[in-house]
């Protein structure tokens, strides 16, 4: 770390001056890029700040600069990759325009699509978590055992804890699901809350005259 000393000193002063020279030229950007190049899962701002030894605020601002930079809104050309915030952290992705090119290069079969039953079960778990298998089954009115197993095997859901009384396992979604959906947190799920709060009871006034 000793050879980074000058960088470490140089950086905070630039930030103190509020913006002007935060430019991607800052060594902080380089250090962030170095980390981004080696991670194999999204890295959150706090973890990233700890890794590069800079304040979170500075890291956040530099990330924004890098996003712009890669998108061609900086001084250089647009890049073939982009920086996305997905599943609770930042990660380098091939720019969408080039996905078909890369797909052709890596070959490989498209991952098997989830069945409609699996999708619906996944939706129930995402919105109702923590939720037991039998609760999911009663919402869907079908046995969901094998579907839950598929979702577990794919790492889209996980066992959270066992109910202290019944011992029934409660399930929830994983960060991997967020990544597969391309969203950053469960807050980004489309809202359907009015229907979910209490199932039966809340409907009396609204639905039945």
């Amino acid at each position: 770390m000793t050879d980074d000393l000058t960088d470490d000193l140089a950086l905070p002063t630039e930030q103190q001056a509020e913006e002007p020279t935060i430019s991607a030229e800052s060594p902080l950007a380089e250090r962030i890029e170095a980390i981004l190049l080696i991670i194999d899962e999204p890295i959150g701002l706090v973890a990233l700040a700890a890794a590069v030894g800079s304040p979170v605020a500075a890291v956040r601002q530099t990330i924004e600069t890098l996003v712009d930079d890669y998108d061609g809104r900086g001084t250089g050309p647009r890049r073939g990759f982009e920086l996305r915030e997905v599943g609770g952290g930042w990660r380098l992705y091939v720019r969408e325009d080039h996905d078909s090119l890369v797909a052709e290069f890596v070959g490989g079969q498209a991952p098997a699509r989830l069945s409609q039953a699996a999708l619906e079960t996944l939706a129930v778990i995402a919105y109702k978590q923590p939720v037991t298998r039998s609760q999911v089954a009663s919402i869907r009115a079908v046995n969901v055992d094998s579907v839950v197993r598929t979702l577990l095997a794919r790492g889209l859901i996980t066992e959270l804890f066992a109910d202290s009384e019944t011992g029934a396992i409660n399930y929830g979604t994983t960060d991997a699901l967020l990544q597969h959906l391309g969203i950053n947190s469960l807050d980004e799920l489309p809202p359907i809350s009015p229907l979910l709060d209490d199932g039966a009871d809340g409907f009396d006034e609204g639905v039945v005259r």
Partner: protein
Amino acid sequence: MAPSPDETPETFAPVGPDEATAAASDSTSAESIASDAESEAGFRVSLSNFDGPFDLLLNLISKHEMDITEVSLSAVTNEFIAYLQHLDDDEELDQASEFLVVAATLLDMKVAGLLPQGELVDAEAVALLEARDLLFARLLQYRAFKEVSAWFSRCLQREDRRHVRAVRLDEKHRTQTPELVWSLSADDFAALALLAFAPKEIPHVGLDHLHAPLVSIREQAAIVVTLLRGTESLSFRELVSGIREPGIVVARFISVLELYRHAALSFEQLEPLGELTLRWAADSWSDETLASLGADYDR
């Protein structure tokens, strides 16, 4: 488990695979099937295409372009029941209970819709309202999840096409990664392998081999007769005291009803759910009556 043709008459009617019940239900739902054939000849779907009773119900409702909240459920009840006829193999029967619950609720509603509505609010009407509300609520909830699952599907497909940087660490950095935490013994590992090789459909243990022991209504009636004749009156509670098997309690109750039909006993109940008091009332009773008692329930 597979019923042989001559056993079929006992099969549970709404889901029975046999021609007799199919024909019977056909006649009740004939119009709806006929209108299906006319209006949308293509709409012939096997039940296994529907992912549960709500899925089927939702489909039927949307086919008629009805709003769930406004829907005249009697219009779709016949079709729903008609589709239940496709529930005809053992595996589907295992999953049929939810279908039957929904079908029963639908039938209740249809009946209530056909009957003249009085001002009178009785317990049954309230229960029916509750059942309807519950069905609506669950159906709405189901529809919400079904709709949002399309969003999941879209996002997953879009993201499937994306490529993320996921590259092995350089050799020089790999050696610096923390030691792997390993806690599995060879046996644990083998157990894990078993799990990994297991078919992704969870094998489940069928309950088909479990049969409740048969209880004879005739035998139970004989016991009731013996007990009642020996005393002036007896409450039903006393009649079944000490009996643990629900099946015997049920059979004994049915035998009481049967004996009442034959005017062999009278009963008295002062308030709903109150004590049920039984009295022997037969003027002439021959034990031969017992022999034919409960014949309706014979298998």
